[in-house]
């Protein structure tokens, strides 16, 4: 596992979910009060990008069927989503965001 450069902190805000492709996988980046978090960007229910979704109170809502996931744990919070989102460790150094991946 190594830290991959994922983006700039300045590109995120509480309403804007970032997206980056690392090792061929789309990763969503979220700016919450307690830091930056990262999950797989593809909904586990149908093909949709969480980066197009609605973020509030640490919960990301999928843009096509409103399935909700806890951004910090990836946990699927109820129908229509039942499979959790994969999460990745993220950290910020200076203005740079890093995500830990194989």
């Amino acid at each position, binding site marked *: 596992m190594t830290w991959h450069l994922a983006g700039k902190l300045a590109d995120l805000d509480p309403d804007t979910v970032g997206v980056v492709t690392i090792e061929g996988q789309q990763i969503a980046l979220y700016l919450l009060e307690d830091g930056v978090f990262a999950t797989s960007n593809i909904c586990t229910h149908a093909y949709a990008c969480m980066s197009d979704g609605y973020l509030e109170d640490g919960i990301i809502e999928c*843009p096509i069927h409103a399935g909700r996931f806890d951004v910090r744990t990836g946990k699927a919070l109820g129908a229509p989503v039942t499979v959790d989102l994969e999460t990745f460790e993220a950290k910020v150094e200076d203005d740079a965001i890093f995500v830990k991946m194989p």
Partner: protein
Amino acid sequence: MSDPIVIVGAGQAGGRTAAAVRAALPEAPILLVGAERHPPYERPPLSKDLLLGRSTPEQAHLQPAVFWEEQKITLRLGTEIRWLDRQARRLTAADGSGMVYDRLVLATGGRPRRLTIPGGDDPRVRYLRDIDDALALRAAIRPGLHVGIIGGGVIGLEVAASARGLGADVTIIELGPKLLGRMLPGSLGDWFAELHRSKGVTVCTGTALTAIEPATDGLVLRLAGAETLRCDLVVAGIGIVPNTELAAEAGLDVDDGIVTDAAGRTGDPSIFAAGDVARAFHPLLGRHVRLEAWRNAETQARTVAAALAGAELPPPDVPWFWSDQYDLNLQAAGLPRAWDDLVWRGDPAAAKFTVIALEDGVVVGGVAVNQGRDMRPIQNMILAGRPVDRAALENPRIQLAATARNLGAAS
């Protein structure tokens, strides 16, 4: 051991009610009875992935088979309930067997409205309501076939998109002036007509179907104005009729649906209703409505289960709905009967836009095409029920989330 809580109708609302009752009442005997042979499943995939051959019936099931056993929910499938005796608290099935209930939930859903025009009862006219309908349709649609679709509502349009995806030629016949006329403002119905036309579908709105006649290997649709349309396959999607007969014959209040209060209670304190069959009082709309939507089944199931358990009811939901056609996602929220203002945001030409409906400056509804992130702010603004900053709604540089938050904060 008390008599069971019996749920008649093992569809999405019935299945979710059973699961939610079990979660709230670990010891209560629960019997879930359904006329279909399938375990509880949700219907959205039937006109989309299942019809396209991209998913299996099992993927539409609410839960794997073991779930019902593990939850100690007795599941009786392929069992149609024919009679409800409220005095004796007893149900009688078509096979003559009986079951008593302590409390009863009616989640009997609806059946497709049938064509009544001459020839409309031809057995080859297909409807799409259950898994078996979808599987039969999937097997029948082949590239190059001409599929006639009667009805320009959600089912008709989703089947049209899926049929195109399977390589068929498609014609949509809609009686009213607009597609999705029950759901959307007319200007949006026009946009959807153009969407389907751009995909090669022939769209005929304001067109009455007057008769259906048999033809070699197909059917002929006779349209008003003497036009005829030869089709290899015909699918009618003209709405559902709620299955209220059991309730009506038992003397419960029925009015295009089983009438209930906001908690799903009928006039009989032991009987509840949920899902497509229920005409429930909606506190946000201030009137009774019968909603035919996935989220409604989810919410009403949780609400009825809470009422049965004597627990706090979940807060009322803004009516919300989605439809997927081709690679496009449509969502709509609110159920306004009137609006005096529509604000468009985004780029209709790029199929990424939002339309917000206002009445007296208050957001009463909204529609998003490929812009689902706008739906939560729209629902929040509907809930707020206060006049919104219209200039902010119109300004593409101001996020809807910010406008909604400001509205919420200003109290």
